């Protein structure tokens, strides 16, 4: 073993350059940290949290639990069966929201879902029912082990992917992806939207169920590993994942149903590059849910938006949401749409970033960067920046363009507050007005203030006890 007193010293220098210069002048290796003051008002809380005796072990435990999870696709069942939803029970994306505060696309999706479940004939007539809460209930997907992209509205008749961690038996759920353009999750509810949903419930869902039961379980986490090596970041680009799923389910699908239905199902899946997103999301949630409720842990376990609020949940603060106003993404618009047409950020899909995919692994998906308005160097820089706010590098998701470095994973509230670097999210953009659908895609960040709010709560519950083996012993 090297003698610590006499081995060649090398230094990480944080602070004044002069001291680093003096090390440099003695020809010793020195790494300079580009330190800047933390987010305003966080000084005391940062110190308190840094001194929380539980924190290092708690964060290590949260990371370990997250990384230990494998997400296996084990079944496809209707939401009424999977989640016990009744006809008027609706789940939605993001933190809790009321009809009064709901944005256009959220309202549109709920109205469409009311029609889908037969509560009204015409979606336009659902608003009073939703406003008064008669016969209907609203609850976040996240409170039911589920996640939903964009508006994320789930109703009883929708079929859900069922993912399971074989080690623990825990499960998460997500609806089937409808495709792009005018779809319910972007707030569209025209007859063709509802017709497609009905076909998904009557034909696609049962076919997939049969196929998964024959071919499964399918290791979704492992497919995600491959996706990052094939140009997907599993949030805004899911092309290779979708094709790998088709590859794995194809033979069983063919065996499962009438040939016309199977052809239609394969055509539908193959025509929707985002089909796999709805498997990536519950896989990420399954991993992150395992990291919940570790006392003292500063790791973010959920980031979600409901179109009005952006919320995060943190391992060490239980089920509490820390929310702020959702931002309007910056990016590219479809057709004639522009920034005025875009709704603020919406959807549970930021669970992918929370787990280290999406914007965090943007460097793995150079093909996506122009679609969201960036350059390849931007993508590399974005992923690198995310290492500054994360606790770990994924042992199985790696980024080829960064020499296969593990994806940055496990967002640390404390590091966000210290650096002022906020998580980078790749996202689709919904139209502001109910019924419009998707208007573009781009990049968005959370409202910065929710991280100091979470930090304050972590500081309030910090363990400040001096240790038994404190200053006077050795």
């Amino acid at each position, binding site marked *: 073993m090297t*003698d*610590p*007193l*006499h*081995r060649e*010293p*090398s*230094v*990480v*220098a*944080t*602070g*004044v350059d002069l*001291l*680093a210069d*003096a*090390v440099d*002048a*003695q020809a*010793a*290796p020195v*790494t*300079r*940290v*580009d*330190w800047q*003051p933390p987010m305003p008002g966080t*000084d005391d809380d*940062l*110190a308190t949290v*840094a*001194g929380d005796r539980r924190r*290092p072990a708690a964060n290590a435990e949260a990371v370990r639990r997250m*990384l230990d999870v*494998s997400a296996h696709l084990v079944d496809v069942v209707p939401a009424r069966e999977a989640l016990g939803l009744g006809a008027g029970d609706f789940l939605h994306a993001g933190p809790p929201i009321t009809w009064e505060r709901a944005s256009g696309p959220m309202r549109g999706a709920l109205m469409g879902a009311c029609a889908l479940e037969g509560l009204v004939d015409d979606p336009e007539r659902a608003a009073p029912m939703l406003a008064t809460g008669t016969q209907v209930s609203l609850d976040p997907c996240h409170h039911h082990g589920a996640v939903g992209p964009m508006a994320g509205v789930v109703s009883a008749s929708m079929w859900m992917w069922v993912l399971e961690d074989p080690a623990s038996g825990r499960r998460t759920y997500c609806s089937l992806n409808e495709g792009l353009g005018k779809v319910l999750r972007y707030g569209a509810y025209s007859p063709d939207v509802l017709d497609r949903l009905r076909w998904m419930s009557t034909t696609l869902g049962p076919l997939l169920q049969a196929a998964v039961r024959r071919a499964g379980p399918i*290791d979704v986490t*492992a497919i995600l*590993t491959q996706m990052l090596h094939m140009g997907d970041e599993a949030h805004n680009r899911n092309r290779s994942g979708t094709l790998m799923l088709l590859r794995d389910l194809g033979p069983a699908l063919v065996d499962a149903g009438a040939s016309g239905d199977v052809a239609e199902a394969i055509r539908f899946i193959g025509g929707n590059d985002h089909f796999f997103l709805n498997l990536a999301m519950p896989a990420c949630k399954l991993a992150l849910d395992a990291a919940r409720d570790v006392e003292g842990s500063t790791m973010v376990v959920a980031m979600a938006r409901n179109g009005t609020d952006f919320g995060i949940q943190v391992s060490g603060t239980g089920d509490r949401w820390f929310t702020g106003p959702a931002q309007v993404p910056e990016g590219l618009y479809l057709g004639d749409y522009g920034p005025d047409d875009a709704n603020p950020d919406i959807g549970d899909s930021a669970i992918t970033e929370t787990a280290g995919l999406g914007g965090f692994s943007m460097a793995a998906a150079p093909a996506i960067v122009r679609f969201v308005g960036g350059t390849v*160097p931007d993508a590399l*820089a974005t992923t*690198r*920046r995310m*290492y*500054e706010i994360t606790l770990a590098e994924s*042992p*199985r998701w*790696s980024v080829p363009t*960064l*020499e*296969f*470095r593990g994806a940055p994973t496990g967002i640390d509230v404390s*590091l966000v507050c*210290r*650096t002022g670097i906020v998580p980078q999210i790749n996202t689709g953009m919904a139209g502001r007005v109910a019924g419009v659908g998707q208007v573009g895609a781009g990049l968005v960040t959370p409202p910065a203030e929710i991280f100091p709010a979470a930090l304050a709560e972590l500081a309030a519950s910090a363990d400040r006890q*001096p*240790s038994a*083996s*404190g*200053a006077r012993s*050795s």
Partner: protein
Amino acid sequence: MNHVDVRRGAYADSVTLMQVSRSVATSHGVDGAMVAMATPLNLDLLAGMGFEPPDASPNDMVVAIRLGPDGELDEALSAVDAALAVARRTRAAGAVEAAPHRTTATALRDSDATLALVSVPGPYAFVEAMDALAASRDVMVFSDNMPLEQEIRLKSEAAERDLLVMGPDCGTAVVGGLGLGFANATRPGPVGVVAASGTGCQQLLCLLDSGGVGITAAFGVGGRDLSEPVGGVSTRQAMRRLDADPATELIVVVSKPPAATVATELVSYAGELSTPAEFVLLGAGEPDLTAGAERVLAALDRPTPAWPRWGERAASTRVGYLRGLYCGGTLCDEAMLIAGQAGETGQAGQAGQTGQAGQTGQAGQTGRQLGPVRSNIPLSPELALDGSLTAPAHLMIDFGDDALTAGRAHPMIDPTLRLERLAAEAADPDTAVLLLDVVLGHGAHPDPAADLAPEVAATTTRGVPVVIALVGTAADPQDLEGQATALADAGAEVFASNAEATRRAVALVGTGGLR
């Protein structure tokens, strides 16, 4: 012996894993090794090598090791981890140049650095320093103004992890031959220093260097380490480090006036170590730093040299007040102890003395003393100066004190404030003699004499003697002899020993009736 383990969910590409396998296979005590993803092909290969193929999926990493007769499993598994880490890092280094890290934590994650050096503003230093401990690294905290409870928390964390916190407010350290903060270029040698005093440490190192004795390390521990609330945690940790080091023959603990209980505990702790220890704990009636250096030399059976001095002796004494203008807080303390009142000798801190009595330099034994010395860092509260920092009295100003460095660099780097004061004192008819320190070494001004010598010359030309304590080694970047000569040529009396300089300055204060 065959060992096989499965790392569920770990992934690396096959080329990397082939390199890792080769590296492990050629490490000590290993006859064969394969680290690979558990694909059917690799499991077949594993079986072919005579291993029992484990129950694993292609998404798991399998580590298989065959140990030779003298192989140790722990050692081989560490070799696997090291090879995987090296592979990751090598690849990261080859990537496009990245933006710098933003925190100590993230920088240490990607670095082999042995030590973190934290000099952010005080309120933020704790968070960065805790990063270093969490990453199992020692940390030097140069920052001052860290709240006391944070210092205590930091040091208890370090003690639990068997790590060393140097500081806060640690100005000087030498680790593995590398000078950190303000540090003199020293030679390797038998002495290990633990210092709760930056310039005190520098004075000791420089005197030992001039006596031909080098060091194994100098661990600064921060000026409050030997206070009652902190309890000497870092001092003890540093002593333990030095005790474990075979090259350290003598441990020397240097401190500003310590809490008596802490000093007693540390002396008792020193008794449990296998390496002898000397304590140089400043205080009224205690040996000064130069006497401490002499005791260290004696303990090593080295002769005490005549401490270097340069320049002509001033012709005559002058009636008036002693005016000391210091950069180093401990040097200023020492000067006040020597020049100050005689009545307090031999009272405090006796517990600290274990060594032979090198009694040449006790504060009570100078030829004479001047009486009360007013200061911005007074020895007792009634001697404090008001904000004007002036008084018709003997004065010692520490320009390195926090209140005078707010918003500007330390006077060892930026001499402006002290030079202004020097000119003012020279013009004051009540000034009998000026006493200054000049501290050389890494981090300090590259040529302090260039600015100082003209002011010294102007002062001595007026008939006001200037005495300078020059703290430096021959190997320091500023050129010790050149600095000494320039200051001596300007008319100053220059001493390597601050204690000698102080006594000389005291002697130059005429006895013809102070006003």
